[in-house]
């Protein structure tokens, strides 16, 4: 199972920060072409990111690029430059299924031209319109996970982000939209990079909300989040037993899985496999 507990944002215009990204152990690395790149550096940055994707050792991390949003003149050029070398395209300010379809259409053309496999999309829901359409957006076949951001949303509502009670509802909606389509749900970043304890609590809360990961802004945050997402030992032991029982039943050709006289049904087995994945047990 692919883990996306952490996705580390790295500014796409800063070669010094990009060159060591593989050492940080994040599940996903996002070379950013959007907010961290000033307008006058967009052109240089997308070329730099193209070279980075081909030359930097990303270790075991999935390679993501956050392109510019579909309402800017930059997103197509971003895709043309970097798409053949990425695993996942992270698209900000997605507001509708049609937005994803528009981007997916251009991706089709580039993939065909370069003879590469279909790349994945992770949309970022950042507006009320996007939130309203989140369940539709999650249905797109390229979408593997849903992420969200609160700045624009709270600005639209005219409330300070730190006090916005509505964000718990937004979080729940993102989880429901993603999970109802069998996709991952990814929580937004915890911006205080010095507050390790706060981050741990934040990531734990995200996990129990149903999220599969959170965004991180600093390499030091990676280990903390992975720790927060690690299941408890007793759950890991139980999950091991369930998976072993399932494998034994399969070997013996039995259709029913039983453990200590208890029937194990499919959702329980799925959850056990997920626990082992999060515990990084093969």
């Amino acid at each position, binding site marked *: 199972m692919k883990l996306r507990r952490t996705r580390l944002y790295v500014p796409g*215009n800063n*070669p010094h920060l990009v060159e060591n990204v593989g050492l940080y152990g994040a599940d996903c690395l996002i070379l950013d072409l959007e907010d961290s790149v000033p307008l006058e*550096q967009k052109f*240089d940055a997308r*070329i*730099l990111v*193209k070279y980075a994707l081909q030359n930097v050792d990303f270790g075991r991390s999935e390679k993501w690029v956050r392109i510019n949003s579909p309402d800017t003149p930059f997103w197509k050029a971003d895709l043309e430059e970097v798409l053949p070398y990425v695993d996942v395209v992270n698209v900000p300010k997605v507001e509708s299924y049609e937005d994803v379809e528009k981007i997916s259409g251009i991706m089709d053309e580039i993939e065909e031209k370069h003879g590469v496999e279909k790349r994945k999309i992770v949309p970022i829901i950042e507006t009320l319109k996007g939130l309203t359409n989140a369940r539709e957006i999650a249905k797109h076949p390229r979408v593997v996970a849903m992420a969200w951001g609160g700045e624009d949303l709270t600005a639209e509502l005219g409330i300070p982000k730190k006090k916005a009670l509505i964000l718990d509802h937004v979080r729940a909606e993102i989880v429901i939209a993603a999970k109802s389509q069998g996709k991952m749900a990814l929580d937004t970043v915890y911006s205080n990079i010095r507050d390790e304890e706060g981050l741990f609590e934040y990531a734990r809360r995200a996990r129990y909300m149903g999220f599969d990961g959170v965004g991180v802004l600093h390499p030091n945050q990676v280990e903390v989040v992975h720790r927060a997402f690690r299941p408890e030992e007793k759950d890991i032991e139980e999950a091991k037993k369930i998976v072993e029982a399932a494998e034994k039943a399969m070997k013996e050709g039995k259709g029913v899985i039983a453990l200590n006289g208890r029937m194990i049904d499919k959702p329980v087995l799925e959850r056990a496999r997920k626990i082992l994945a999060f515990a990084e047990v093969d």
Partner: protein
Amino acid sequence: MVKAGTLEKGDVMVTIEESGEREIIIKSKLERLYGEAIRKTVEEMTTDIVGKIYVEDMGALDWVIRARIEAAIRKFRGEEQ
């Protein structure tokens, strides 16, 4: 005149200026160690550029130098940004 890159640590600034003749100037903190390698990369990537190419290196890796040279060449050729 076009520029690509920055003068931040680990980066390189590449400038190409209109000129009747081809000229390459390399300035690097690590010129004694890497000056030749940088020059080789610049020569290789800019063979058909007639102009003054000025490279100010801040300790960039080879892929960074290549990325910045490509950006500068494409701007020099008038590619829309």
